[in-house]
């Protein structure tokens, strides 16, 4: 059941990962493309925008100011509109003015669009009705009539026009106009001033029912004007770049600039923007799929391996890509974990094999003895003691096995301290001296150094030398002396236990530290068969070594690093 659900879980989580990747990459790439497009659009529209802002500011300023300085607007252009009056047939100033005006209008029609200069002159001649009856150009007539010949009427008229233009502000009485009138005037002025094609003006709301003249915009209300940038306005299928003047009464004036040429760029940009989103999505899907696939493939490999492990196959290892990335580290960790598991499992297997082979027979013997005891009617202490001793032996073997196993797990290092190995040797030799002496063996201690400080567990080293001396007693009883010596090199403490016994057959030397290994001659000598295995295990956790050689007896050499990387216990 679990084997069926795990891969599907993995798949769904990798799908989630792929979707996430796609979204992230999409967001980033689309964002970049849109930002680029938006920047280019802003660059395209910037001059247009500046123009519209300038226009709006001028309008606002003019609407607010006490007097309208139209000449500032018209003065420059008013001279440029030359009207040819040479062939005009006029007998009176009235006729001349009418002909002049007609000629102006003709010229304007010929040019095809209203020119500023023409508009200005028409205004000043009151040919336009926009000014209402504010001021009659009576003085124009009077001025013309004062000339001696009609030939000079043209120059006189031009002079009068310019004169009137000069004194415009005084006559116009701008300050008396209400805001609607000002606006009307300004709009007409603007229409006259600029190319009609370029300027886009619109009063909002577009509802025609709203009568601008009757909205009664007061100057005070106009103070609340706000300027907001509006978006692109489409009117008559033309693009207009606008700003909106809010007029404070709910109405507004939209001022803009037709931007047909920019329209193409802007709409292209809009297309690019959409394309950016789409391209970003495509890039994201491809990249996301590739990355997701790569990750999924590696996860799948790891998953396949762990699946194999679950089924008991510990031989395979993950391949490293060599990139040193997270996946490599994970793979390396899994491999290291597997190595550790294999070594632990072989340890466990060895212990269980040992138990099967070497504990079963003594336990069976014990059982037989107990069975025998049941047949005795009145068992005495002498009948029972051997059984208890047998049980003790089994327990001793068992606890030795357990001890080796625990040592091999490496948990012992916590109890490491620094101590003088010479002290340990002195104590062990002191303890065993009477026993050796009783056995007719001289136990010699040769300490070539005052202090050989090592780090480790001193109790364990006591056990090491105890075991080695026990072995000498048991297997080298014919020795006349056994020597225990201690020297030290720069990096190692070297302890030697050297007996004068028969030694060990060469083929058996490498097997001495195996659990339950006994030389052929000593099958019945007793002992657990674990003494040297324990010695080897203790050496291992201290990162030391133990060597056996035959040298006029058995010579056991122990090497222990003098500065092991152990943290001393407090």
């Amino acid at each position, binding site marked *: 059941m679990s084997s069926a659900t795990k891969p599907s879980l993995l798949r769904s989580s990798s799908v989630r990962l792929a979707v996430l990747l796609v979204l992230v990459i999409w967001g980033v790439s689309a964002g970049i493309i849109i930002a680029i497009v938006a920047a280019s659009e802003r660059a395209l529209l910037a001059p247009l925008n500046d123009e519209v802002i300038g226009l709006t500011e001028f309008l606002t300023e003019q609407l607010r100011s006490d007097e309208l300085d139209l000449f500032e607007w018209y003065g420059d252009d008013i001279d440029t509109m030359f009207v040819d009056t040479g062939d005009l047939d006029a007998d009176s100033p009235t006729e001349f003015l009418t002909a002049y005006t007609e000629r102006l209008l003709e010229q304007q029609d010929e040019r095809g669009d209203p020119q500023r200069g023409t508009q200005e002159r028409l205004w000043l001649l009151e040919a336009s009705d926009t000014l209402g009856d504010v001021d009659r150009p009576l003085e124009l007539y009077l001025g013309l009539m004062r000339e001696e010949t009609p030939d000079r009427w043209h120059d006189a008229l031009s002079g009068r026009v310019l004169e009137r233009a000069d004194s415009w502000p005084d006559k116009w009485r701008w300050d008396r106009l209400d805001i609607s009138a000002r606006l009307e005037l300004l709009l007409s002025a603007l229409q006259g001033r600029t190319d009609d094609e370029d300027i886009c003006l619109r009063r909002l709301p577009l509802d025609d029912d709203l009568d601008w003249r009757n909205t009664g915009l007061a100057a005070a209300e106009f103070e609340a004007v706000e300027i907001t940038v509006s978006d692109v306005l489409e009117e008559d299928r033309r693009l207009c770049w606008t700003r909106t003047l809010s007029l404070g009464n709910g109405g507004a004036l939209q001022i803009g600039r037709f931007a047909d040429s920019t329209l193409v760029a802007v709409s292209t940009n809009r297309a690019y923007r959409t394309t950016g989103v789409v391209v970003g999505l495509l890039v994201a899907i491809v990249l996301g799929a590739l990355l997701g696939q790569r990750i999924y493939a590696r996860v799948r490999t790891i998953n396949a391996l762990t699946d194999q492990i679950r089924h008991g196959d510990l031989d395979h290892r993950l391949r490293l890509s060599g990139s040193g990335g997270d996946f490599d580290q994970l793979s390396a960790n899994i491999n290291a974990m597997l190595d550790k598991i294999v070594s632990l499992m072989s340890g466990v297997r060895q212990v269980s094999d040992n138990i099967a082979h070497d504990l079963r027979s003594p336990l069976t013997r014990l059982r037989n003895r107990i069975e025998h005891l049941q047949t005795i009617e009145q068992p005495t*202490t002498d009948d029972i*003691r051997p059984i208890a001793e047998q049980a003790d032996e089994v*327990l*001793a073997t068992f*606890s030795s096995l*357990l*001890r080796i196993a*625990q040592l091999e797990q490496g*948990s*012992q290092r*916590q*109890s490491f301290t620094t101590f003088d190995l010479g002290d340990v040797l002195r*104590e062990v030799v*002191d*303890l*065993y001296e*009477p*026993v050796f002496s*009783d056995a007719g063996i001289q136990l010699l201690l040769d300490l070539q150094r005052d202090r050989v400080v090592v780090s480790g*567990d001193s*109790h*364990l080293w*006591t*056990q090491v030398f*105890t075991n080695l001396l*026990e072995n000498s*007693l*048991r297997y080298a009883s014919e020795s006349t002396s056994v020597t225990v010596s201690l020297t030290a090199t720069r990096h190692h403490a070297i302890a030697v236990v050297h007996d004068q016994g028969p030694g060990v057959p060469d083929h058996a030397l490498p097997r001495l530290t195996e659990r339950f290994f006994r030389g052929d001659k000593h099958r019945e000598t*007793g*002992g*657990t068969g674990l003494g040297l295995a324990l010695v080897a295990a203790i050496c291992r956790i201290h990162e030391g070594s133990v060597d056996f050689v035959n040298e006029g007896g058995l010579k056991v050499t122990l090497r222990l690093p003098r500065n092991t990387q152990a943290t001393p216990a407090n």
Partner: protein
Amino acid sequence: MNILLAEDDHEVSDYVIKGLREAGHTANAVDDGDTALIEATHGDFDVLILDRMLPGTDGVSIVKALRAMGNTTPVLILSALGEVDHRVEGLRAGSDDYLTKPFAFSEVLARVEALGRRRNVTEQDTTLRVADLELDKLTRTARRGGESIELLPREYALLEFLMEHVGQVVTRTMLLEKLWGLNFDPQTNIVDVHISRLRQKINRQSDDALIHTVRGMGYVLRD
């Protein structure tokens, strides 16, 4: 002696309690740590025997708690975890002795009696006397019937230990542990050899054997 045993294995518990009562002690058992801690703080016990692994508060924590409260009742910890680390941990927590399972009852008894007695020995005693045997702790010398006995340091230490536990059975394991710091049993009977050496020296002056062998248990020094 009044002894409290905290042990959740009822078979072990019954066996130990029965043995302690047969040896003439008052012994009672509880089977969880919390009750043990309550009993230990309220009752007047001479020795506490605590299993290391107990339901509720564990043995080592009980010792720590008791010592923190200023309770100095001797504690013997029983444990199936026989490794050095655990032994050190138990002793460091303030327990007085530590015994690994499986154990012989004689071992428990010997240790409990040693712990109970130790409480009564005054630290100021610098001279120990048993019959005509005298031990001067200051000069580290021994005399028997007025004659001085030449002792090696290891022999002196052994005699001192035996005299401090006069009248009590001292097991081989106790001697190995307390005197030589060996927490495992060597195959060879080194203890017997040392005892025999000491005996020879002590008995040289007199025919009265003071160190007696208790079969299946250990040794006892008495008149």
